[in-house]
């Protein structure tokens, strides 16, 4: 695992293996229609791919946060509404479940020179997606505040709690911690991160039966609860946008936030120079004496739709290959931690690289994980409001998940 990560992410120092010629990308025709999430790194990729437009190539793009809900219906039609969809760990699964994306082995062999093997997402031996960037939640901390409180950079969540207490005791900040604890997807993701840090398993081995109501689950909730003691009491309404705003306002000293937010935090907009200059990044903390950083690794990549002509599939693949060139990655070095050959990771990639080399787990790609995530996000709320015990909350999650998984056909 550790070695693989290094292979995947470490600097090779090599100059980009000649990416495609810029003008027209050498595609003679076809239609390229892109569906993607809406954040700067993906804008960079898709804009670069757009350079292939013209010369008989039609190009359309749709950047939207609603991509998750659009992708399945849009690709079910024949011909599909989009030829290529940019996905992540979680969003690839529904496309696979319904057999909506095509294997890319032939296209990779023909046009995929310069791709690293680690970029190829293979399912049952077939390449189903090409990854180009990594994302994870990891530690953001304020160097000046930690120094003023006389504590070092925390390596574990126990140290995070101790540091938060020190900051509060010295009167430096009222609520030194923040977290993406908004009820729903965000809260579910925080649980997933922490639970994996404790080495927990979500499902009974080889089945879709839930297995979270155990000592590790309880420990996870207790740790999350002790973090919320140092957070703004509104924490159940905080998503990434709110945490970023609190950070930029200088109200927070430590948070476990998405790497993809780094660009926005450091861009000197919406914050003061003092906050920006004191902002530092580190790998996600470990928890409970474990060695695995309590976070999940995410990748973003592109897929090619199944229900389109082979010519359009080839045009789309080549356009996207142009989009994920080393030229693009180095031009937008701070926008993401690119997995692309020839990209030189900067200081802003430190958090992801540290987390990955520490052995952090990728977000589970099993088809029923989405239902577990939803159940966690909805049913844990009462525990954090103080009206339910950890065991009861976890039992509720299992009950809610079981009903949903039965309805979706994952459980008998």
């Amino acid at each position, binding site marked *: 695992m550790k070695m693989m990560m290094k292979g995947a992410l470490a600097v090779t120092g090599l100059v980009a293996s000649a990416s495609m010629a810029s003008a027209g990308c050498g595609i003679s025709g076809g239609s390229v229609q892109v569906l993607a999430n809406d954040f700067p790194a993906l804008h960079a990729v898709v804009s670069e791919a757009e350079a292939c437009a013209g010369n008989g190539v039609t190009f359309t793009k749709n950047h939207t946060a609603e991509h998750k809900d659009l992708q399945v219906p849009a690709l079910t039609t024949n011909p599909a509404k989009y030829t290529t969809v940019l996905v992540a760990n979680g969003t690839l699964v529904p496309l696979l479940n319904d057999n909506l994306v095509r294997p890319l082995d032939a296209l990779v062999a023909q046009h995929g020179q310069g791709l690293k093997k680690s970029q190829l997402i293979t399912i049952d031996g077939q390449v189903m997606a090409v990854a180009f960037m990594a994302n994870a939640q990891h530690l953001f901390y304020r160097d000046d505040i930690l120094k003023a409180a006389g504590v070092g950079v925390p390596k574990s969540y126990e140290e995070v709690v101790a540091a938060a207490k020190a900051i509060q005791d010295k009167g430096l900040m009222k609520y030194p911690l923040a977290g993406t604890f908004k009820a729903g997807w965000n809260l579910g993701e925080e649980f997933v991160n922490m639970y994996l840090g404790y080495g927990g398993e979500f499902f009974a081995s080889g089945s879709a039966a839930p297995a979270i109501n155990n000592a590790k689950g309880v420990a996870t909730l207790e740790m999350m609860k002790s973090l919320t003691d140092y957070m703004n009491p509104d924490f159940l309404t905080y998503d990434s946008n709110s945490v970023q705003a609190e950070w930029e306002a200088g109200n927070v000293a430590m948070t476990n936030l998405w790497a993809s937010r780094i660009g926005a935090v450091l861009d000197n907009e919406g914050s003061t120079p003092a906050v920006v200059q004191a902002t530092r990044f580190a790998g996600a903390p470990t928890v409970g004496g474990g060695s695995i950083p309590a976070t999940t690794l995410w990748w973003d990549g592109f897929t090619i739709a199944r229900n389109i002509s082979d010519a359009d599939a080839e045009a789309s693949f080549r356009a996207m290959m142009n989009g994920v060139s080393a030229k693009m990655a180095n031009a937008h070095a701070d926008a993401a931690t690119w997995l692309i050959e020839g990209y030189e990771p900067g200081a802003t990639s430190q958090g992801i690289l540290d987390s990955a080399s520490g052995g952090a787990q990728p977000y589970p790609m099993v088809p029923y994980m989405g239902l577990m995530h939803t159940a966690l996000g909805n049913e844990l709320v009462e525990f954090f409001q103080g009206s339910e015990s950890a065991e009861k909350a976890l039992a509720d999650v299992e009950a809610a998940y079981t009903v949903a998984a039965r309805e*979706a056909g994952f459980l008998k």
Partner: protein
Amino acid sequence: MPHKTFFWFILPSALAMTLFIALPIVSVLVQSFYVEHERVFKEVENCTPFSCKTELQVDAEATAALEAAEPLGRFNGWGTYLNRRHLAVEEVGQAWAERASLPDFLAALYNLPFYKALAFTLTYLLAVTPLVILLGFAIALGVNALPGLFKGPVIFFSLLPMVITPLIGSLILFWMIDARGILGSLIQTLWEDPDLSLKASPVLTWVMLMVYGVWHSAPFAFVVFYAGLQTVPQDTLESAMIDGATRWERTRYVVLPYLMPLVIFVTLMQLMDNFRVFEPVVGFSAQASATSLSWMIFNDLRQEVQLFGSAAATSVLTIVGVIILLMPVLIRTWKQFHQK
């Protein structure tokens, strides 16, 4: 109107209502009795940039074959209605059997998603509907008494809450009541409690959503009542004045009875609207403390694995709820029709 003329007159709207209202409801009803086929799994090795792992994956082709044979899915009868996400018959029975006291039973009930949503939906409905009617009527009376010069601008400003899209309106208020927002810090100053947060406490969140609901819907009641006030017969009012009736007595015994059909109309509309309260729950990020039936449908459809059967069952239960709510009014209308 001769029957034939009436038939041709009503045909276009009857067709449109069948196509866009009746058929979708039938389709939702059918959908609610079905769930997804059992997925066929296979164990495969998945490789990502970080590691390779042997995991279960859906065998897409085998599952697709099942779906092609029976596109609606597996027949589940009333199963979806009775499961934990909906009426939770089994869990409710168990809670009743194990109850230590009535509050204990209610707490167990409130822990089930459907009843939690229903509790908020009904409280919202019962609090917001009468307040909207009272406030709307009061504004209408007030505006009606204004000199002509001010009427235009006052009406315009009174209508603003209704003009603003609900989601945007709730977002604006959400930011204003933040601990650092103008209303949030005002409340903290007034109560002299720097830790007071409207968003953290479930009770205050409910109150906040209801205040928003009244703020948003009052203009609708106001407009309807204001229009009605313009048609109140002046001679009746004048004779009441000659008889020495005070303003309150004129309002109570002349204006209000005259406007009663409008009050019933607004009540009906408000009951239906408030029963499917949705936007404020999303706009206020309030799902930790308050969920509604419409929000449950939204939540079922907005996840990676969409639960169509579950969403359909909640929709049907919502329709049933609306019918129960409107029943008294419908019975009354039916009786009046037969009296004539």
